[in-house]
């Protein structure tokens, strides 16, 4: 619990009460960060950043992860990237770093680590999750002008992002993706379509699925494949 920070003149007392919700915590946190905090955030950044590029590169992220005792393939790192609105996979810029850590009210590695559970909860809220899900796809587009992601990577991403929420759907869809030959890559429309599919379509009977509607063709084929398997 922080002591009240009243160093900046003219600013009202910002200590949140014990009754305030996490939302309030974040809300008040994101609007106020003291200069000391900002300094610490920047310092933390430079401790991981690559000297020549002045960006945190994959090596730096790996170091950060090990310091946080989180695997660098963990979904929470992706969530962190989302919170930062990081543009390039494997890299954090200073602006992104500041944005994320400010929002999480973390200026040390420990605080950052402790903020992760709350971050998870935040992401899992339905309104945020769609945004996160969409972000996850964009984040994996590493080349300029890249529009689609290869099957292998998609399977991993699906597992990472949707695995906990829609275990069965993801498992079967991944199996299908690996066995079929029609598609070598997945585009954003198909990616988003799958999330909508998980939410709207009853599984595993698919009783309310209609291939005459505008579902992406790959899902039509997936349902067909599943129904054939089941009979």
């Amino acid at each position: 619990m922080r002591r009240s920070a009243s160093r900046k003149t003219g600013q009202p007392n910002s200590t949140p009460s014990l009754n305030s919700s996490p939302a309030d915590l974040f809300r008040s946190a994101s609007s106020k960060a003291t200069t000391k905090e900002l300094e610490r955030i920047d310092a933390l950044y430079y401790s991981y950043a690559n000297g020549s590029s002045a960006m945190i590169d994959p090596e730096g992220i790996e170091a950060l992860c090990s310091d946080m005792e989180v695997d660098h393939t963990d979904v929470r790192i992706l969530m962190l990237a989302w919170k930062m609105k990081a543009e390039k996979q494997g890299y954090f810029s200073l602006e992104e770093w500041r944005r994320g850590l400010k929002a999480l009210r973390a200026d040390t590695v420990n605080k950052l680590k402790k903020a992760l559970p709350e971050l998870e909860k935040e992401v899992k809220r339905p309104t945020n999750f769609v945004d996160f899900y969409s972000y996850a796809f964009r984040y994996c587009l590493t080349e300029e002008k890249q529009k689609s992601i290869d099957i292998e990577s998609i399977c991993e991403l699906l597992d990472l992002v949707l695995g906990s929420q829609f275990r069965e759907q993801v498992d079967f869809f991944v199996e299908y993706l690996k066995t079929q030959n029609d598609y070598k890559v997945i585009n954003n429309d198909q990616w988003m379509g799958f999330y909508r599919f998980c939410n709207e379509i009853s599984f595993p009977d698919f009783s309310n699925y209609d291939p005459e509607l505008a579902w992406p063709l790959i899902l039509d084929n997936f349902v067909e494949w599943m129904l054939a398997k089941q009979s």
Partner: protein
Amino acid sequence: MVPKTFTVEEGWEYLKNNGILKLIRILEGRSEPSFTIAESMMLYTTVYNMCNQHPRPDNSEKVYKKYQEVFEEYIIPKVLPSIKEKHGEIMLMELVKRWVNHKIMIRWLSRFFEYLSRSYLVKKLDFSSLEELGVKHFRNLVYLEVGRNAIDVVITLINKEREGQQIDRGLLKNVSDFFIEIGSVCINCYEMDFEALMLQDTSEYYSRKASKWIVEDSCPDYMLKAEECLKRERDRVFHYMHPSTEKKLVEKVQHELLMVKSKQLLEKECSGFCALLREEKVEDLSRMYRLYHEIPQGLENIASIYKEHITGEGTALVKEAEDAATNQDASKVGVQEQVLIRKITKLLDKYVAQVNDLFSNHSLFNKALKEAFEVFCNKTVAGRSSAELLAASCDNILHKGGNESDEDIEETLEKVVKLLAFIYDKDLFAEFYRKKLARRLLFDRGANEDHEKSILSKMKQQCGGLFTSKMEGMVTDIILAREYQTKSVEYLRSNSNANPGIDFSVTVLTSGFWPTYKSFNLSLPTEMAKCVQVFKDFYDTQTKHRRLTWIYSLGTCNINAKFETKTIELIVSTYQAAALVLFNSSDRLSFSEIRTQLNLTDDDLVRLLHSLSCAKYKILKKDPNTKTISPTDNFEFNYKFTDRMRRIKIPVPPVDERKKVIEAVDKDRRYTIDAAIVRIMKSRKVLELQKLVIECVEQLSNMFKPDIKLIKKRIEDLITRDFLERDQDNPSMFKYLA
């Protein structure tokens, strides 16, 4: 004598004694002379005076009431009982008689009381006129009492007549008129009371009959009865009902006899619609059409059974061909397929004629025919699509060598092209047709140009100019090529040093029109190479900006082969000729040597050498003397070869291009669908998937029938290429991205 001034009561006495009672006596049939003019005038004046009493106020109102009482006092004690005491037909006759009387009564009384009309009633516009009052009273006092009975009697009589008994039609006409007249001043008694009850009874009557007949009678007999009933009912209305009843009555009868029992009737085991079609019972079928044609939606069931019937026949033909094809060897399969096409065209002729003759070319039946043909005309036979079969059929007809007259050929072509309308994969047909057209134009000497042009114009009529544009280009090319040939001969004659020493001709084709051919850098023998160069020089003088690409695989060569015993002229392809000429300078050549010298692929070389050494005419000797070519073989010229003919043709069997054609068409389709989707979305900006699919299918219907999966795939692709995007809020809508 009438006093000038008198009370209403006094005046009424006079009126009653001299007018009303006299009138009643006349009506009751007692011998009573009719009213003279003088008497009428007196009565009129009496009424006048009654109304205009000085200085009393106007008594018109009283007089008006009195007028009405006249009716009441006569009808209630006299008229009504006389009707009520009778029954049945007699009652009706009495009713009619009393009504006629009543009309007379109204006429006379209106005359006597005319003054009221002229004065009192003029001011009271919403009061009933004297005539109206008269009718109203009869209605209220008589009709309301006995009307129902009367109607029942009428209905009973109608049913009697239906069962074949004679009835008094005149009486019924009078009763009917009575209902109409009675209803003219108030509620429409005729329609609401009589007609409604009569129609209901009619429904019940025919419902019973229908249930009985449908079990007992065959379909033709039932229809005859139905036709007869309808005729009689119309007749009935004509004779004793109001014309407006006809339509409603006929509808009821049609409904009970024809619509309610329609399924049972049409599906009757041995005499139903299908049986009639099979046995071609023209009269019965015509009757069926006539009967059902008038009924709204009456023909729908029939048309759908018709479609099933035709589909069944067509599918059986296809199955026949399929079975025959699997039982026979490959060479006969082609014949089976041509037989199938002929049978289908015959089927088409038969049913087109039938729809025209029996079903008056009705659109429902034309639609049924079209849909039926579409079902079986798109089935594959022995792995070949109908598009391919049809193209093969056209090829067959247009091949040189047939004993049919020009007219016959024209007719057959016409019929075959009609089948094209039913085929979904029109673009596939076009591709096969083009390939075969190329062979005909290039290899069939004397292919009939008129027939070729004629079939193209028929196809153009059916499928549009875009469909036939390339093919027309091909035909034109051949004509132009001949001109070029003539010019090149001139050129050679005038440039003697350019002469390559051998006769040659070149056919120049416009590449865009013709199917794509692979061109190989075949190493030509020197003599041929010189020809090529000479022509190239000539062509350059004719036109700039055009490049010649040589397709040697399409060429033929006449070459003299000097065998030991005799010289034989060989008609071979350019490739074969090039190979043979190699043996002018070498006695023995290996497979790889030939390949190096000719610069061909292994596959092509194998086929080529096979045709020269392992087929019917062994021009080359192969070592080892096996049936197939292997890369280690060696070849020698076969001096010992001989044949009784002086000139022989050595064919190279054509490569099966079917797969390539299908691949090419599939590829084209992807582009075509893409273009269609973009075109539609550009103009609509935002569109739902289902509507997009419908429009797409419609736009492309002239070429092929895209299935929804293919369209969806193309949409997916277009999304990746940023032509379209899915609407965020409504995932079934797509938006055009400019």
